[in-house]
């Protein structure tokens, strides 16, 4: 390295130093610290004490840990396909040429601008068993005894899934952008060959937007595993722990029980789960994601 290059390097590091500092202090350090704490008995107030694998061992026999893991998997398993189908079909509808499309697009995007707390409180009213909009609608549709959503063990998780589907605006916008990039020439050629609606969707649209689907699925996996606010606000984890999701239990152990070491261990387990799933999706994507021009 010449003197000139060295000086350039130093300058470069100096100019990026605010970001490097921020990244080290706010990302690398907490991540590394939480990894260390996961092997510690740590109450936040007292200094951490190393206890080896005890937290991980205790987690394996903690019934609430398993329950919360199950609740979260349930949520993920339903949320990802439902979210995919809902947002893609809405994006396709919003991609048609109708008058006032800008308005419709806005209508579907607006919910994602509503703050999480306000949205959750709004949905608590919608789901109210007696006066709720949803049940009033269901009764009018001829369902005599609609469920009391948020207080019924069997319906609390589905209720939260329904609420989450309402806030898919951003995913819809990303799909919409992807759909607008599908070459019209390909669609026209297929039409000339006599392809029907489904053929075009299956053989042209989906392959062409597969990178967008890939991105959205990964984001959905990460986001769904972290489901927290809705349950924290709307149900507090109940009824009968049916909405005690992983992140909610993690929060309770960390900030209510002051067991930061135990919570750190939980966080690392969640990290590994998300990592493995993302890697699996990535492997599948190698064969099924098409990057045109790339």
């Amino acid at each position, binding site marked *: 390295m010449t003197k000139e290059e060295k000086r350039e390097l130093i300058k470069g590091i*100096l100019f990026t130093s605010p970001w490097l500092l921020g990244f080290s202090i706010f990302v690398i350090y907490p991540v590394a610290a939480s990894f260390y704490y996961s092997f510690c*008995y740590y*109450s*936040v*107030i*007292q200094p951490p*004490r190393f*206890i080896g694998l005890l937290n991980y061992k*205790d987690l394996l026999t903690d*019934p609430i840990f398993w329950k919360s893991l199950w609740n979260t998997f349930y949520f993920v398993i339903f949320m990802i396909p439902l979210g995919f189908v809902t947002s893609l079909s809405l994006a396709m509808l919003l991609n048609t040429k109708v008058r006032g499309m800008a308005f419709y697009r806005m209508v579907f995007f607006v919910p994602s601008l509503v703050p999480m707390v306000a949205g959750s409180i709004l949905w608590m009213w919608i789901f*109210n*068993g*007696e*006066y709720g909009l949803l049940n009033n609608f269901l009764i009018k549709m001829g369902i005599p005894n609609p469920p*009391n959503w948020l*207080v019924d*063990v069997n319906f609390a998780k589905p209720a939260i899934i329904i609420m989450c589907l309402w806030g898919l605006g951003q995913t819809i916008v990303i799909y919409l952008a992807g759909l607008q990039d599908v070459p019209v020439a390909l669609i026209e050629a297929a039409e000339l060959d006599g392809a029907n609606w489904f053929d075009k969707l299956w053989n042209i649209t989906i392959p062409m937007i597969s990178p967008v689907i890939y991105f959205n699925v990964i984001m959905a996996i990460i986001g769904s595993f972290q489901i927290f606010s809705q349950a924290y606000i709307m149900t507090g984890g*109940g*009824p*009968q*722990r049916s909405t005690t999701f992983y992140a909610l239990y993690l929060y*309770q152990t960390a*900030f*209510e*029980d*002051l067991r930061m070491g135990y919570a750190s261990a939980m966080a690392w387990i969640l990290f590994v789960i998300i990592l493995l799933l993302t890697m699996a999706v990535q492997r599948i994507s190698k064969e099924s994601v098409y990057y045109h021009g790339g």
Partner: protein
Amino acid sequence: MKKVIVLLFATILAFQLAGCADKEQNSDTVKVVYWEKWSGFEADAMQAVIDLFNSRKFTNKDGKLIHVEMSTVSEIDRRLLTAVAGGNPPDVAGVWTWLVTAYAEKGALLPIDDHLREAAITEDRYIPVFWEICKYKGKMWGLPSTPASVALHWNKRLFREAGLDPNVPPSSIQEFDEMAEKLTLIKLPGQDKAVSFYELKGKPDHEDLLGQGTIIQMGFLPSEPGWWPWSWGYWFGGELWNGKEKVTADDPGNVKAYEWVKSYSDKYGVDNIKKFSSSFGTFASPQNAFLSSKVAMVREGVWMYNFIDKYATGMDWDAAPFPSDGGKLKDVTYAEADILVIPIGARHPDEAFKFISFVNTQEAMELLCEGQRKFTPLKNVSEDFYARHKNPHIRVFRALAESPNAFTTPKMVIWQEYLREMSFAYEMIRDLKAEPEEVLSDVRKTMQKRLERELEMSKRAEERR
């Protein structure tokens, strides 16, 4: 170039440090920072006490003036945690009862025994339960500010309408249940007049009738408002632990208590109750089940009067001890208090204690408790305190707190977990998803394991010291 950059950094750093520096060094006033968890009129009452303190111009041992400044802090347990961990806590914090155990165990509070001795503040000045609340592992960790106890509140108008004597509260749980049946009204399809559950239950097909009808009023519901779901055992002679190393979630008293909770679901039907309860508004609203005369009896704290006054002005009500099983235990109540503590790392602990001890003088305490509409935790009470007090039944709550059967939040390090576990068990029992004995035994096993782990950790820490 290099010099310029170094100079720049140095200047920024210098400014930063100057900003953090203690501005009090040169002044002749010591600022005591106080964190209060209440807002509204309760905070106003504390502010009045602080104003009184500041107006007296107390000085510390260096002759500097002590000035207390209050800030209202929401979610005080979490804020205090981060403040203590970050080394920048307030000088005094007003915290919940349960927090004393959790924080004292973790070494986050300053024990005040030496200060108490110096100021000659002794146990005999207090109602025993409130002194006891501040104690953990033989040391004192704070002093009470406003106390509370819980009692049965009943709606006298609904009593009259049901043909009950509005001035005679039930003397046992069994009597109470019968009154609740008389106070529970069901509207049957095609009938104008509602019928009480007491009348209905005599009919052979009463369960079907109940299903077809609509509950329009209930005598009592264990879930309304459902606070302290862990505590029912105490009215049946149960305890949640032995005070040392044994969890007793499924002791016979507790099992009996939760059998009783279950009996309400059995009797009135889970779905019928849920349907009826979904018409209730939030606690602090005129649609509150008790305030809107939908539920005739509730177990609530001394603060309930404030809500009656605000949302159901003119309501005809009374309060008495919540009855125990067979009336065997007299005056059972749950007592708790707001506690003034000095966090570890507080900059002015001596001045902080001066303020805490001032709040615990009869004059200041009565000002505070009258403002917050509670009774005082001190044994001595001035005659006109009760005469001035807005709550017409304040003496009931005071007498309950003095009872030997007053219990408080179990002083367990794992209390928050135990509380969640008990709430879960309560829900399972209430919704008829599990038998009390079975689910309480599960709670015992889980919590015993957790308690043992914490005791082991605590022992290891002590050995290291």
